[in-house]
């Protein structure tokens, strides 16, 4: 991927994600992780190579919750179904299910401004879940929430993945987040972005919060970290 100003954002990036796989890309800031997702989703056109993604009902969660300020949570969660022309009754029940799934029941009629950052992110997840997307892209969605909220959201995302069985592609710079949720972790280097290492994560689902403190988890995290350091220099 080369931008018009000549910046080469991605080079020789090649991988695939199947349904039932949760692949996380970790890399330093500015390594082209987000560009990767924009290309996968079709928001950006790739300048070279080949991209094949099922973009019908694609799920894409951004760094910001990007809720529409003028809509209540319920109405925000309904948005995608609305854009896809789903009838009112049906999208209402889809939205309600998704809201229940992310634990926001009771907040349907609140406006985004009265919710905390973590809750807005949940609403954003719920909005995407209404589409039951076969492909789910996450662009550092939990980067702006506090540590404890992030761990909760990681556990919940992992449960959602298990339940829905989508093909997940997750971007982050948190190693623990990556190892905790994924079936596979890719390490990316910066300028131009390349994939320098690949790790299979063998832990069984559902993964318990305590997994984070087990020796195997620490060891694997250490290896990812070492690769990431190598990519950084």
């Amino acid at each position, binding site marked *: 991927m080369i931008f018009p100003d000549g910046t080469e954002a991605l080079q020789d990036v090649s991988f695939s994600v199947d349904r039932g796989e949760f692949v996380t890309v970790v890399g330093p800031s500015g390594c082209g992780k987000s560009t990767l997702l924009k290309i996968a989703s079709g928001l950006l056109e790739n300048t070279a190579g080949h991209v094949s993604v099922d973009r019908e009902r694609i799920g894409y969660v951004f760094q910001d919750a*990007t809720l529409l*300020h003028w809509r209540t949570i319920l109405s925000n969660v309904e948005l*995608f179904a609305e854009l896809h022309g789903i009838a009112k009754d049906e999208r209402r029940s889809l939205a309600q299910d998704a809201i229940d799934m992310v*634990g926001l029941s009771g*907040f349907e009629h609140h406006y985004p401004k009265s919710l*905390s950052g973590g809750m807005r992110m949940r609403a954003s997840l719920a909005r995407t879940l209404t589409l039951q997307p076969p492909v789910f892209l996450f662009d550092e969605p939990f980067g702006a929430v*506090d540590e404890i909220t992030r761990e909760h959201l990681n556990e919940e995302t992992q449960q959602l993945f298990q339940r829905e069985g989508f093909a997940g592609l997750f971007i982050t710079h948190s190693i623990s987040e990556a190892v905790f949720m994924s079936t596979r972790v890719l390490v990316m280097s910066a300028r131009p972005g390349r994939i320098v290492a690949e790790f299979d994560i063998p832990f069984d689902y559902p993964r318990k919060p305590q997994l984070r403190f087990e020796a195997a988890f620490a060891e694997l995290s250490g290896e990812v970290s070492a690769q990431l350091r190598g990519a950084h220099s």
Partner: protein
Amino acid sequence: MTTQEAAETGAIESPLVGGADPSTMHAGVYREKSRPRVLAETVLPPLVMGALIAGLWYSVSYGVLDERRRFLLRPPHQVIEVGFLDWDNFSEILSGLWSSTRVAMIGLAIAITIGFALATLMSQAKVVERAVFPFMVTLQAIPILAIVPLISFWFGTGQKSRVVVCVIISLFPIIVNTLFGLQSAERGMHDLFTLHRASRLTRLRKLMFPAAMPAIFAGLRISAGLSVIGAIVGDFFFGLGDVGIGQLLRKYANNLNGEQLLAAVIMSSALGVTVFLIFGWIQTAAIGKWHDTSDSGI
């Protein structure tokens, strides 16, 4: 406010995770101040200021001006007696005010229609914005006095010309604010609509217009005030037909009716304030639930 007070009155952000309980959402805890104190803090300052202004007014009327020149600034009680309590005089002012209000409302309605249409077009095609915008700025920059002769040339010296002045004066803020508002939706929100293949019209209806509402209302409040000024200025220059407040101001000044002149000025200002308040109220009713007016200043 002391630090302690701030801590006591400041809203507490609820750090919610997992299975959140709606009741905790209203966690903003404010310590209630006693009623008399609130009253004293909010009502007293403007009252004191008003008394000071009245005092200054009296001292000029009686202290600075001698008997022969007192018509230049009549004391407050005479203005009230002659201008407001004499029904013949006051009803004349009211009917003039009503005439000018009608002109202002018609002018504002036309300005809103033209303004929305132009701003929407400009938001849809950059080329329209580039083409139209310089001329809007030029139109805005013309001092209204400079085109008064032209307006009377083309539209006569009656109601029509007054409305034209209104439209010219109040159009610009509507266009600029509406356009700014339509362009204010965040990039990420546009991406959502792109990802889900929303049509141009859907994007406009469900994203750009709602996002523009706060800015549109800011523009409306400015323009509503300007339309009142436009109506009075227009009336001042174009006197054919209905007698508006501008004609009355001119008449009172010519006849040296100091009391009525001041009463008419006060009522004009009251009209402007009323219009501003009405639009503020509409704004709160329309978007107050999701938009904090105090946050962004618009």
